[in-house]
């Protein structure tokens, strides 16, 4: 049995991010005045303090900036090992996502690997998981 993943509570700020996968879009909040990408999403720009911000679709590809292979069962139903990675997103400078690299052996992931988003729906949330680009 695979343990259910804890899911985010949706609100006005995070809904575009967590539901973009329904239409295949990875959306990152961006300031429309100065262009800075803002993650986690907030209703104000951390660079110029503008409130003229909104979600922008990014390519959905990126690079493994760092990662870890988790071996510890944090609860009994957890399947291990699995890869937790920090992905630097293409087209959104300075933004990283914590995610899982799926669809390959855990031992085969490395820093610098090119990856592409693969959404996985859980209830009303589309989790942006990533897989290696062959």
């Amino acid at each position, binding site marked *: 049995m695979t343990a259910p993943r804890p899911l985010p*509570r949706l*609100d006005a700020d995070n809904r575009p991010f967590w539901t973009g996968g329904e239409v295949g879009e990875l959306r990152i909040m961006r300031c429309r005045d100065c262009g800075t990408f803002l993650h*986690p999403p907030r209703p104000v720009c951390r660079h110029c303090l503008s409130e003229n911000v909104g979600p922008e679709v990014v390519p959905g590809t990126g690079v493994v*900036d760092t*990662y*870890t292979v988790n071996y510890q069962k*944090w609860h009994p139903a957890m399947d291990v090992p699995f890869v937790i990675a920090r992905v630097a997103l293409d087209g959104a400078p300075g*933004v990283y996502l914590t995610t899982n690299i799926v669809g390959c052996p855990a031992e085969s992931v490395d820093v610098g690997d090119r990856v592409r988003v693969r959404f996985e729906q859980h209830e009303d949330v589309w989790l942006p998981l990533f897989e290696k680009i062959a």
Partner: protein
Amino acid sequence: MSLSNEAYITGVGQSQIGVKLARSPLLLTVDAVKEALDEAGLSIGQIDGVSTYPGRVAQMLGFSPIGADELIDALGIRATWYAGGGEISSQLGAVVAAATAVRAGLARHVICFRTVYEAAALSRPDEFPMPRRDRVDGFSQWTAPFNALSAANWTAQYAMRHVKKYGLKREQLAQIALTDRAHAALNPRALVREPLSMDEYLAARMISSPLCLYDCDRFTDASTVLIVSAGTAVNEVRCTPIRIAAMAGTVERHSWDQAEWTASYATGRDLWTRTDYRPKDVDTVQFYDGFAFYALTWFEALGFCGIGEGGQFIEGGRRIALDGELPLNTFGGQIGAGRLHGFGFAHEAVTQLRGKGGARQIKKADPRLAIATSGGGPLATALLLARD
């Protein structure tokens, strides 16, 4: 330098350190308070301030069961200033707050405490229930959905960058745990009294690569107290006062995954802008090691070696042993002595500067200067402590 405007750590105290202790967390705190008062020669009536991290956390009582206000009421303290909360630069931020308060004249003698009850609470879920949440929010929403549930996972990713970018080897990182455990064997209060060998370390199971079982502290029940006294009141204590020569603390993005560096690096840089002392003047370091990798980063962050050179700096372990040039975590750190959560490092720095380390006292004669740190993820604090 006007010494009357300085802040000092005077009495320090600690309860027993254990796992699944029956004694209540308030009484463990009282044990540590009494020991600290006794060392300082102060009475509870002379205490007029209380500071703690992170205050009572109702959703996670084992993590922090006692708040400042409860201790004030329980001990009949007449507080002219107090504070307790988690939104500060990690555990020793509570000491920074107290030092700032006594320098501002808001209090004369402040009890700073950190009480942990994580092992006992886990074993008594009826008394210490874990809340069930349908959904996660705040910072957790960016990690928990990907089963990055533990700080071990978040920390491991910083450690992996050191492995890949700077060539950090397991045999190098091992020196933190090996040193901790060697020193803990000399500390009668330490949770784990048996030394650890390199072979045992290398054979340990991985928790979250590159961190293995022995790179992690574990749930502990204990309380640690540090009394921070004003320069104008320090003549009232009978123990040797230890001056807080400089302090620094910051946050590096609130989330654990958007920052390139842990907060220790900015904190380390800030510390040296606030003092004329230099790293070469330091006699011993007590570095936060909730995960061993943090201790390694503090050597880099505080300029004892270059960025990325921490692994080479501690390689072989000679340099950071009791008789080395820079003894580390002489009480055993959190990996050896138990997860005291930040306060153990300042407690030990004071103990060493007073020459009271007993079997674990560093071999240098007349130590004058020590550093104690806490945190190392997105939050960090460093204290430079001096015996004048």
